[in-house]
């Protein structure tokens, strides 16, 4: 279990995140939502150890700040919003970098083919020989997820859960691949790992998240299960947008919800 208490983060003298309490348990898919600039990514970056913060952050009771980079790398994988490369790496070479962390947890026979297995998971089988820079933004994002999956292939290692931190993992993907990626994250949690995802799509959030943390102006506006959190009042308060939850639009205007996937 990862537990963060009273987290505040300042960048260059500006307070971005204030007094946030947060937790994710093994087996749980946790989503962080909120409007642009509400501090979601900043909070996730602190959780990854990239930003200094005040407050306490513990992994199974141990101080996360005290962890060495390689120790942290063996218990969590991080997917950034986007990754640009300046050198002509092939897709396979990029995915294989995930194995640098050293403990994929895959069986010895799987480990050799892990880049291929991971690429197949994100629906990019056959892309191994392509150049990363030639791919579309959505494809690049899936390559990066495949890399992260190589790093923490087994959701549980040595009896301890591992975690996926995903920063807007589906923001540049088409609907089919949004579902594929969200399924991967949910499977990871179902198999005993923990998932923290910053998301923008409230429908996908409601569909996949076990718990939602709603951020607003750097503070925690609400947390709880999707049905507890996603209410007309909260959405108006936080997103400054008058919307109705669970109500189909007027007339015959078509609408498509990921929830209807079958």
């Amino acid at each position, binding site marked *: 279990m990862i537990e963060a208490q009273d987290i505040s983060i300042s960048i260059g003298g500006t307070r971005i995140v204030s007094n946030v309490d947060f937790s994710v348990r093994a087996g749980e898919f946790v989503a962080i939502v909120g409007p642009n600039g509400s501090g979601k990514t900043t909070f996730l970056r602190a959780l990854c150890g990239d930003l200094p913060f005040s407050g306490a952050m513990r992994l199974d009771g141990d101080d996360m700040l005290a962890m*060495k980079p390689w120790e942290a790398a063996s218990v969590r994988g991080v997917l950034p919003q986007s990754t640009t490369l300046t050198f002509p790496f*092939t897709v396979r070479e990029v995915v294989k970098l995930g194995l640098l962390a050293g403990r994929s947890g895959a069986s010895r026979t799987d480990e050799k083919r892990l880049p291929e297995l991971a690429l197949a998971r994100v629906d990019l089988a056959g892309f191994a020989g392509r150049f990363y820079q030639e791919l579309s933004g959505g494809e690049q994002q899936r390559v990066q997820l495949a890399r992260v999956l190589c790093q923490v292939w087994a959701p549980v290692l040595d009896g301890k859960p591992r975690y996926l931190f995903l920063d807007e993992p589906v923001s540049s993907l088409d609907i089919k691949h949004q579902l594929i990626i969200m399924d991967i994250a949910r499977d990871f949690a179902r198999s005993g790992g923990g998932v923290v995802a910053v998301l923008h799509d409230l429908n996908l959030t409601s569909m996949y998240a076990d718990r939602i943390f709603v951020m607003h102006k750097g503070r925690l506006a609400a947390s709880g299960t999707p049905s507890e959190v996603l209410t007309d009042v909260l959405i108006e308060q936080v997103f400054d947008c008058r919307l109705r939850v669970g109500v189909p639009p007027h007339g015959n205007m078509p609408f498509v919800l990921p929830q209807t996937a079958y």
Partner: protein
Amino acid sequence: MSGSDERAVSLGDRSVRAKAVIVFLAIMLAGVMLFSLTSGASNASAFSVLRELWAGAGDDALSARDRIIVYDIRLPRVILGALIGAALAVSGAVMQGLFRNPLADPGLVGVSAGAGLGAIVVIVLGGTMLQPLTALLGIYLLPLAAFGGGLATTLLLYRVATRRGQTSIATMLLAGIALGAIAGAFSGLLTYIADDRQLRDLTFWGLGSLAGATWMKIASAGPIIALALVAAPFLARSLNALALGEATAGHLGIPVQRMKNVAIVTVAAAVGASVAVSGGIGFVGIVVPHVLRLSIGPDNRYLLPASALLGASLLILADAVSRTIVAPAELPIGIITAAVGGPFFLWILLRKRGIVDL
């Protein structure tokens, strides 16, 4: 069926090819060294030089005169050329990985200029103001001063160009130009106050040359370069991770800050020591890693050793050209590497505009 499976597995995996290229480059380096040992004004045959090196001085394969030429003139030149070529090429590759920029090169971003300033200070002031240091450090003062100059420039460059863990490429190139100009100004000032003998030293040194290669120079700069070359392969995995960005490299378990420090010191040591003994030899650091990336990809585990081998070969060859093309006179080697490297650099830019702008 299983054949196509195997091909599917190896798709996008260039490691086999990279290893083959490294073996080829190693053989090429051996060939180039032998060629360079046997070419020049005196025509000792390849066979007799090999027999001499193999059997030692007891054999009569070479005449006494040829033996002196091979042992005291050509061999130190070839070894120094190999060391410096390898050092410059590896420094280029490491800097490009460190800055995540294919255009980073010790010569372009002012590191060579900083190292040069360190060397010029010693050449001009070594006999007067720095006399106590000269007495203390002897032949090591020049490479150490150049190392210090290179290190200071690299550190400054990194400090200026990096903000919140992000290294800005534009800032780096601009800061490099500024630092180069500052180093150039001080170098100019020192040149202005130099006497005639020092001026001649400076001019020839500044153009870059292996002509003064002696066992003494190898003894002074060799250990520093060798240390840097030994350290470089340990950076390979970290540099690969760094290609994904500093934050992601950290997430993969790389101790980024420590690794950056090691990389900076390695580059400064290799460039500083090289500049100290051979002056400014341009473009090896940018041309060699580029050519290799086109063929074996950017994986530093292969790129660094391959760069060392190709850089060594290229510099030895350039040196062989420099001392035969206008024989018995010699052309400074910097002229040759710049004459070949400049147009090549332009060609890379023209070809790669698409990817650079991507």
